[in-house]
């Protein structure tokens, strides 16, 4: 079985970020870039399935700037076998649906039976890609897997729902997003890092990948940014030293604010 993991390069989560008020897009050339933290759990799960003999190949699929290869190589260093990155000026400004359309085309051509994603990306934070990709690609799908087991032609998932944890069974081919509870992602070994550079890393244009340019990028986007404001930053309020009455002072503050 072949597993595809959808991965994304995002800005460094420890850095302050900003949006260009002119274009309404994230300023992409500032600071460090990294593999989306949530994606590491999906990569780890795929690599573990391969190590356990349940899969024989793990491929990475991404949409983003050409430079993203450098960040995404970390997932190769963790043990994924190859990377296909769709990168094209016409794909810039893709919304959730443009991204899902592009990923779905690459998936269809890859022959992957199981598709794994992180639960969200640390930049957009929408958490909608697994559902959109499931719908667009016509595969069975489920989100928020706390655990996952492949048994022949189906997958059993322990799913974090709004009301608790549910056991869900779905047939392959399937699209599944995983939570941070599913595993503890490994740190790549030095050997893994060295080996990653030699693994296949293909950068494809929309035309190379056979993706309809009208379905991605700004052309295919269903939403449009009107303006970006920078509200005044939160100001420091009152800070007191506890001299035995700190708790009382908090209560007084909460009463004054009519919260309690």
């Amino acid at each position, binding site marked *: 079985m072949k597993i595809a993991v959808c991965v994304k390069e995002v800005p460094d*989560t420890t850095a302050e970020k900003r949006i260009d008020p002119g274009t309404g897009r994230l300023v992409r050339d500032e600071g460090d870039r990294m593999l989306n933290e949530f994606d590491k759990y999906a990569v780890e799960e795929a690599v573990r399935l391969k190590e356990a003999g349940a899969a024989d190949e793990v491929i990475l699929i991404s949409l983003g700037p050409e430079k993203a290869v450098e960040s995404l190589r970390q997932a190769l260093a963790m043990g994924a076998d190859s990377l296909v990155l769709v990168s094209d000026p016409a794909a810039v400004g893709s919304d*959730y649906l443009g991204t899902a359309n592009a990923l779905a085309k690459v998936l269809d051509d890859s022959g992957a039976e199981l598709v794994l994603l992180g639960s969200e990306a640390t930049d957009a934070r929408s958490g909608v890609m697994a559902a959109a990709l499931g719908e667009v690609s016509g595969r069975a799908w489920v989100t928020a897997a706390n655990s996952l087991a492949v048994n022949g032609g189906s997958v059993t998932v322990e799913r974090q729902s709004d009301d608790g944890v549910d056991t869900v069974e779905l047939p392959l081919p399937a699209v599944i997003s995983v939570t941070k509870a599913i595993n503890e992602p490994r740190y790549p070994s030095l050997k893994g890092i060295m080996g990653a550079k030699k693994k296949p890393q293909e950068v494809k244009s929309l035309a190379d990948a056979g993706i309809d340019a009208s379905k991605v990028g700004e052309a295919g986007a269903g939403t449009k940014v*009107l303006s970006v404001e920078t509200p005044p930053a939160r100001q420091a309020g009152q800070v007191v*030293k506890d001299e035995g009455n700190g*708790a009382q002072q908090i209560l007084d503050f909460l009463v004054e604010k009519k919260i309690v």
Partner: protein
Amino acid sequence: MAGILVVAEPQGSGFRRVGLEILSKARELKDATGGPLAAYVGGSGVADQAAQLGAYGAEKVFVADHEALGSGLAAPHVDVLAQLQAENDFSAILFGGTSQGRDTAAALAARLGAGLNSDSTDLAPGGSGLQATRPAFGGQNLVQSTWTGGPQIALVRPNSFQASESGGSAEVVAVTPAISDDALRAKVTARKPAEEGKISLEEASIIVSGGRGLGAPENFAVVEALAASLGAAVGASRAAVDAGWYPHPNQVGQTGKTVSPNLYIACGISGAVQHKVGMQTSDVIVAINKDEEAPIFQFADFGVVGDLFEIVPQLTELINQRKG
């Protein structure tokens, strides 16, 4: 296209509050979309509670009752909503930002080829219908967006609007759900509900969070006791979760959840960017930390420099006395 459809998720014999919050807000918005205001209730055994939504402004409530709609999975709802959209041509469909709401909105929008504005904290009339406000990077930026076509599909962050009754009544319309085999491919075979009375982090109006300053997993008991006194949900910083002191679903921050409660109490949390972006859109922030240089004091509304192991239990007792 005309009117707004609000997706209200049933919970017990009532509804998740976020659905009522959106309905309350949508009363102001329906004229911009040419009215009327309708609601969708999908679930198993939910027909009786549907009429409650009239009190929050729904003029019509579409009820779909089917076992698969009560499974917690989104795909069956997508079929029913696509069917409702084909028959009624709503100009906007609004969802609460719950796990089920996100899944349903995304798959429905993808099926309809519609635009999706996620994590909206405000909706207003604008352009050809509505426009949405979304905080980016934990509220450092506010992005105003619209849609390039219809239907305008949005996910609304819980606690963005006040739920208020308008005293209206709704016409309840029973829908015969036509659910495809494809939507039934994923099946729930067992359910383990969360503890009774446990409040989800995203929907909580008060959150008490603990961080590195707690020092050990068992010390979360002081945070939990304060949370219980306030009827609050419990959150944790990345440091506390990474150390294995508290479960992942409770993590607040860039790599956890983004929350906007009315009150956020941070206990032993330094307030690094990672945490700040997950909670700085809270209405009121209170911080307790022994380090007076902690960044959290730069954006908390009220801060106490001191030992949380003294202050938090005292505060718990004061609140219990006040209630008592």
